[in-house]
């Protein structure tokens, strides 16, 4: 029926149109329905991809999630490795990133949206800044990493190196000496480039906790008689013990311990012998009793060495040999700063700041743009200044949008690996950052290293790390979606 009606209308003799016209309802409707089916499949692909991704990660990683993994440090063994230190590193660099990127980002957005200049020249500059931000948003993050490498890590090689920085703040340099008693004492040094101090030149030594400590400096010739005495005494003890064990007068552990204690007292020490040393000596004597030949002789040598060592500690607790060579030690305050920044937490945070800044600017601009014009005009009409209008009216009204943008930007910062890889201090960092200038590693970096390893176990702990990372990101994204939907409902 429809065929006849459309041919009678005299449609142009284009083949497709003829075909469609001959069968307009069924063919065109079929196309429509078919396309809808194709659409559903296409849309299902993204859901499918996400589902497979999550399933695979959870399936291979969930067994490795444990408290030791979450808090631990990366190591050479998959079973004992953890992602805790990398998590702390990520938190540190993200805090630095947030503290720098949020004020600058909101400031730029306010400038671009609220302070539109009226004259032609200024407007051109304004448009240039806007275009520049569009462009910065498209720059690959790895390029920002290279920028961070030149500008923050090396600072164009203008200010010396990390080991010999051009500027330092909050660091105290020491020469560290070891006393005969096994304690370390520190001597402050004015300049870290000065040559090593001689112990006799040091006016005052300090302990690790900065307490002044009296230290005696002696040459090895001065000490020799006393050391000889100690040596002979420990040799005597060994001979006595050996004889006693052979003759069978010493058999039990308690008896041996008593003999050692007696020898210690006989040497004229007021304190008792340290327990761990006594234990060591007793164990060695026991070993000598139970074995023969070289092994027994070695065990007895160990007895004499340990006794001499503990006596030297007791007699010369605060004595330094006059020819001892110090090691350099730097104590860094929590507010330690230096230029250049080196591969540090501050560098990582600032590099991430460069990456997320365009995201924050663009989303804040959108949030400000959505604030109704009449609100601003009402405020200005009440006599408020431009800044009063912005700080009291526009920004509060735009806060949900700004917050969403910031949260999304921070979740980008958490997951970003390439720029951090460029400026991070290697992947194995066996310490937690104590100040802004300490090295760090981050979660995505740790995961990258683990995935890159050929062993299957490392891929599995990488999956466990990914579960943790995705968990954090899902929380962030969920928060952003929640804030947006709530404001949409309110609007």
């Amino acid at each position, binding site marked *: 029926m429809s065929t006849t009606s459309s041919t009678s209308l005299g449609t142009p003799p284009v083949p497709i149109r003829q075909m469609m016209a001959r069968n307009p309802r069924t063919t065109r409707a079929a196309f*429509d329905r078919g396309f809808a089916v194709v659409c559903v499949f296409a849309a299902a692909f993204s859901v499918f991809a996400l589902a497979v991704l999550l399933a695979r990660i959870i399936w291979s990683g969930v067994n490795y999630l444990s408290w030791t993994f979450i808090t631990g440090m990366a190591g050479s063994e998959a079973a004992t490795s953890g992602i805790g230190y990398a998590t702390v590193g990520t938190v540190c660099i993200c805090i630095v990133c947030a503290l720098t990127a949020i004020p600058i980002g909101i400031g730029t957005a306010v400038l671009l949206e609220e302070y539109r200049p009226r004259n032609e020249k200024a407007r051109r500059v304004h448009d240039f800044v806007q275009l520049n931000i569009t462009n910065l948003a498209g*720059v690959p993050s790895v390029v920002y990493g290279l920028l961070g490498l030149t500008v923050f890590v090396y600072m164009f090689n203008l200010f010396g190196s990390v080991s010999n920085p051009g500027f330092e703040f909050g660091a105290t340099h020491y020469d560290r000496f070891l006393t005969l008693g096994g304690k370390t004492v520190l001597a402050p040094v004015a300049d870290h480039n000065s040559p090593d101090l001689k112990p006799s030149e040091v006016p005052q030594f300090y302990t690790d906790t900065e307490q002044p400590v009296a230290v005696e400096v002696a040459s090895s010739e001065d000490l020799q008689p006393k050391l000889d005495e100690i040596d002979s005494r420990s040799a005597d003890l060994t001979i006595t013990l050996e004889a006693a064990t052979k003759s069978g007068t010493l058999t039990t552990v308690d008896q041996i311990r008593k003999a050692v204690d007696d020898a210690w007292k006989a040497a004229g020490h007021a304190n008792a012998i340290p327990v761990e040393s006594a234990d060591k000596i007793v164990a060695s004597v026991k070993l000598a009793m139970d074995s023969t030949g070289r092994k027994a002789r070695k065990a007895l040598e160990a007895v004499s060495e340990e006794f001499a060592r503990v006596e030297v500690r007791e007699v010369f607790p605060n004595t330094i040999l006059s020819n001892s060579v110090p090691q350099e030690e730097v104590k860094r305050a929590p507010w330690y700063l230096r230029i250049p920044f080196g591969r540090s937490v501050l560098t990582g945070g600032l590099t991430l700041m460069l990456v997320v800044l365009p995201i924050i600017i663009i989303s804040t601009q959108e949030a400000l743009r959505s604030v109704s014009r009449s609100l601003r005009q009402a405020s200005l009409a009440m006599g408020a200044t431009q800044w009063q209008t912005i700080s009291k009216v526009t920004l509060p009204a735009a806060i949900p949008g700004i917050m969403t943008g910031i949260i999304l930007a921070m979740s980008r910062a958490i997951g970003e690996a390439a720029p951090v890889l460029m400026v991070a201090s290697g992947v194995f960092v066996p310490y937690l950052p104590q100040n802004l200038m300490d090295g760090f590693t981050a979660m995505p970096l740790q995961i990258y290293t683990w995935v890159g390893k050929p062993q299957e176990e490392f891929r599995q702990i990488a999956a466990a790390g990914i579960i943790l990372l995705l968990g954090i990101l899902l929380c962030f994204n969920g928060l952003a*979606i929640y804030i947006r939907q709530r404001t949409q409902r309110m609007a």
Partner: protein
Amino acid sequence: MSVAPTDPVPNARRRIGKPKSTKLRDLLEGGVMTSLVLCGLFSILTTVGIVGTLFTDTVEFFSVKQVVAHAEDMPGKFESSGNASSFVVGQQEDGTKFRFLTHTSAEAAAIHSDEMLRPVIIIEDPEVRLIPRDPASKAPTIVLPVESYTIDRLTLKGTPPADVSSYRIELFHSPARVADFLTGGEWNPKLGSTPHFGIWPLISGTLMVTLIAMLVAGPLGLITAIWLAEYAPKRVRDVLKPVLEILAGVPTVVLGFFALTVITPQLRFEQFPMSLLSGILGVNPFNIGTYNVLSAGIAVGILTLPIITSLTEDALRAVPRALREGSFGLGATRFETSIKVTTPAALSGIIAAFLLAIARCVGETMIVALAAGQQPIDLAGAGASALDPRGGMQPMTGYLVAVIGGDISNFGIEYFSLYAVAAVLFVITFALTIVGHIIRVKFQQQYE
């Protein structure tokens, strides 16, 4: 009119605030303005920083020189005549002689196999450097540029010092040249062998990944966006949009893991009886390497899918309702409306979305670093057959990560090569962003 006229201004002032505070307020206003302008300047400064760093270090890349031979393995003597001098290569103990050559490695290879002229030095822009043998001596290092050279003689500009025997001689040249960099088909920065710095193997890696990613994400993203904008019921949209957002928020290193451990094994169809297929075809078409561009490209496609979808959907939604209703009113189906009316109307936005997605693919780093392989292809040697998506190809970003991961110092040719590659990357993404911006601004149809 008995009442004296009062000044209206003090009254108004009293209402707004004390007049004393206006000065303070102006000061605050000015301070805020200044700090905001500083914020704006910061973004300009970032761009200047990127361009400046990439440019200066790329220049450094093309001017840094590398030692190609020491006097120890290159016996010879200096001959002086007037202002000029020359370095003549002598024979080595086994009778072989050094040869200075220029130009192509193919030429070098021909002479290589010719006779017993084993040691061949390919020199471009050479210089001879004389370094005092005694490091404690105050004698300076002397650099003598080479004016011309034949196969066994370097004619130098300037004369070496009289006691030339107390110097160590190094012949060095810049391995990177601008022309080779822009046209060369071999990328081999390793020390030891003759380094080649031709960018095309890295660019073709990047283009290959981008092509595969766009083949995956382009149609899927476009269709999904049309569906979301024209067909999908609100309930489905409320589910699909967050899914896409979560997919967009997945860190790229996670997608790299996905490419390596899921996509690559699946592409091999290991469950399928491959021997049957190879029996029929003679070859196994799914002979896919552990590191391959195909799976990396698919993963990058999954990454860009949400970007294309959301930007295209925004563009489609910006098309006014009246256009659609007009089309429906003329009897068109939804399919015809979306293909013939809304999509053409939103074309500028869609093209801009695609360009942005391509820029994102080009700059994508962690997925390709993990899954696309660590070896740049050899376009010069293997030709077009190297462009096999089943094998590994190192893209530009992959090279950056591979070099930085290998603990390099902050000087030397490898370090500077990072900046040259990053400069190419930056130029490509910059061009894509700007073109996308122009298309969006200039060709956007206004329906008011």
